[in-house]
């Protein structure tokens, strides 16, 4: 959870003031369906479950998003190989670069 606070602070530094966080797949899907977002960062693994349902919900609503993961492999999630991936731990610059290109 300290990671989340750091990410929120990094995002605030980058100018993203309104950040909503969800800790589980169910919570994330509910949040995505309940509000309009400019972008999303999706951890491939949420509380032990694969976060594919969240990716599907984001794709359905056309929300630009990228993945965060600790894994090293090329393939992150079936059907979403075209999305950007940020590897944990990541640099603030990397976060900024990906968000900039997503929101261009």
């Amino acid at each position, binding site marked *: 959870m*300290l990671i989340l606070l750091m990410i929120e602070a990094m995002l605030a530094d980058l100018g993203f003031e309104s950040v909503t966080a969800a800790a589980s797949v169910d919570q994330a899907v509910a949040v995505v369906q309940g509000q309009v977002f400019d972008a999303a960062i999706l951890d491939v693994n949420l509380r032990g479950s694969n976060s594919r349902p969240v990716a599907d919900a984001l794709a359905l609503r056309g929300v630009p998003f990228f993945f965060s993961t600790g*894994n*090293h492999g090329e393939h992150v999630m079936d059907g979403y190989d075209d999305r950007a991936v940020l590897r944990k*731990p990541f640099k603030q610059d990397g976060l900024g670069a990906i968000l900039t290109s997503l929101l261009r």
Partner: protein
Amino acid sequence: MTGKADKQRDAEAEVQSFKEKLGPFVVAAETTRMAMVFSDAKQAGNPIIFANDSFLSLTGYSRQEVLGRSFNFLMAHGADTDALALIEAELSGHSDKGSEILYRRKDGSEFWAAIFVSPVRDENGNVVQYFASFVDLTKHKDEQAQSRMLIDELNHRVKNTLATVQSIVWQALRTTSDRDVIRNSIESRLFALSRAHDLLTRENWESASLFDMVNDALEPFGVSDGRAERIVIRGENVRFPPQAALSLGVAFNELATNAVKYGAFSNETGSILIEWKIDRTGDGDRLILHWQEKDGPPVTLPSRTGFGSQVIERGLAHELQGTVRLDYRSAGLVCTMDIPAPGTASNG
């Protein structure tokens, strides 16, 4: 009667004569737990002319169903050119270490086997039969898959731990340039994280008891200079899963650090009561926990939300999917947690 059936009978007769000549060796081949077949190298498709009991139980076929069938009939993907090439290499003696092939049993289930083939030659050196043994690799493959999963899980956890350490350092560097303050901040949080890991390791990373978590988090702050009697911890036996346990360890460390700097442990008389209960009245059990300080110095509202209070009110609440509130009451700080009771409660 077809010519093929005649040849099959001739081949089986050869095996029968081997049996009569070689007695004990044949018994060994028949009864060994290593699955084995002989095939007729002089016929197209390498028909099987002998199959031992182990082979039959490995594949689920009866002897009649196997004798006369082509050597490759077992393959799960009979058109797989790579697999066929491997078997060709085995048959021509160009492979010395066996080949892994995916086979299919009579019931349709698939299994990996290592196949070792040796040619049987006559007096002129011509290959008359092939002798093949099969090693069932199912258990080996399962163990390999299990290892890969554990290593992936380990990598996942280590990356998360590194990112957590990054957060700790990052935060320490943000609020001050005083090197001692930075160092203490990093050390204190790192060691809290490390203690939480130790507790989980003692419990084989299954779960941790809330009592142990609170006790462990307070231990560096309480015991050394006789503060033990100034802490009371009370509540029924509740256990949390690993990720929640790590977050609680970090949060209790923040509360304790704050108590030492500004709260009930910053003077001689203050004390802390930590108690919890499970509220079973609503739909879904809730765990209600109070961290209650008293007899410390007069409490003043902090001028801005420090990182510690963010960790407690936002970070922990997010992690546990409940609400966490800090009340700066004049009698002493009170922290109230209202979260879903964890499913691993031993009396749940």
